[in-house]
């Protein structure tokens, strides 16, 4: 029986090589991909996210953990295909037009990916039509918008309107430092989260409502 504590610590501490070694050990010990992801990796990412919220970890710690998680997921990929691990849904994510800041958005993308979503990361400075086109092509359940600047968050409203006009099923969730629940309600977004952990919880909730 594999003990998950080493893999958990490897992701929490952002140790890429150890995470790869441990996830290989877990597979060799017959652990299912689902179990490895949900019983350990998502928990570790959740913990580093919580430490960040509490001011006990910093962006580099989050990035190291995300890198370790990504490396472990790459090793798990063939296992997931073999086990036909069902994806939770498809998310199109990007930083809105006029804004280049994408560190927070990339962390959310990593968390969603690690939690079992297919994530299409469009990068930064993304216009409304690109979000809609990608969501349509991939039958996405969620469009995830990020902005850091108060001068660019207003563009989220245009995207929400454009998504409604396009008549696609995707729910829109928003996040980023200047954004609030009040703002999300005002622009008609389907959801808001103020951190990467909450974004995963929200995405799961929105997918089940699709």
């Amino acid at each position, binding site marked *: 029986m594999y003990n998950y504590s080493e893999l958990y610590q490897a992701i929490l501490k952002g140790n890429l090589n150890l995470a790869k070694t441990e996830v290989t050990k877990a597979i060799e010990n017959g652990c299912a991909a689902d179990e490895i992801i949900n019983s350990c990796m998502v928990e570790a990412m959740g913990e580093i996210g919580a430490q960040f919220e509490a001011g006990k970890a910093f962006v580099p710690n989050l*990035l190291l953990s995300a890198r370790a998680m990504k490396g472990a997921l790459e090793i798990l990929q063939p296992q997931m295909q073999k086990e036909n691990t069902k994806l939770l849904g498809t998310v199109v994510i990007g930083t809105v*037009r006029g804004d280049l800041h994408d560190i927070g958005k990339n962390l959310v993308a990593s968390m969603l990916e690690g939690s079992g979503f297919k994530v299409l990361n469009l990068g930064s400075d993304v216009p409304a039509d690109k979000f809609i086109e990608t969501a349509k092509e991939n039958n996405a359940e969620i469009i995830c918008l990020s902005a850091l600047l108060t001068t660019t968050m207003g563009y989220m409203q245009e995207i929400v309107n454009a998504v409604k006009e396009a008549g696609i099923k995707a729910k829109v969730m928003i996040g980023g430092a200047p954004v609030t629940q009040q703002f999300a309600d005002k622009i008609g977004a389907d959801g808001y989260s103020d951190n990467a952990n909450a974004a995963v919880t929200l995405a799961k909730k929105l997918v089940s409502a699709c």
Partner: protein
Amino acid sequence: MIEQVSSLVRGELKEKDIFPAMGYSDSIPEQSVVDMVRQVCEDAYSICRLRFMYDIFDAEVLSKRDIKIGNTVFAPGGIITSYLPGMTSACLFVATAGTEYNEYIYKFKKNGDILTEFVADSVGSVLAEIAVSRIIPELEKQFPDLQHTLPYSPGYCAWNVAQQKLLFSMFPENPCGIHLTDSCLMFPEKSVSGFMAIGKELIPQPYRCEICNNLKCYKNRSKKA
């Protein structure tokens, strides 16, 4: 129009400026991160070519939100304009850490090295500010008896970033190799544009974020935290 290209001088990149840019306001990163910062700084000293371009125009405050620089009316908004009484001229500028440094950051992005990319990005923000700071001694030499403000930029203090188009229209095409995207973002990314007000009666004010009360802004949120 004055344009200058210069290398970074050893000692100009300071960890006390870089660590806060990385989110370490009152603490020091762990040693592995410090080592990475030092390596990126070393690289910056060898590759970075700082550039700036500026010109001086007559300027005046038109209303609580609007100012005129040369023949162009800008709307920097109430926060910035409230600090401009006494402005008689303005130094309109662009400055950049340069295409060489941008390519350096991009290399990490392309390789998926998100941590070094983040460190290089943070150092790049400091480099862009150093490029702007190179203009200040030039101004002080040119106007020894006048006061000047710190730089104010579109996109900050609620000044609409779309006004970059107006600002760039007052420079030759692609000044210092900087171009604007349709969404008014600058490339190379580590670039700064804006103006510094000049005038005998100006009262120098604190740095941009210190004068802004926009509670939605992430800078103010982090100050509160």
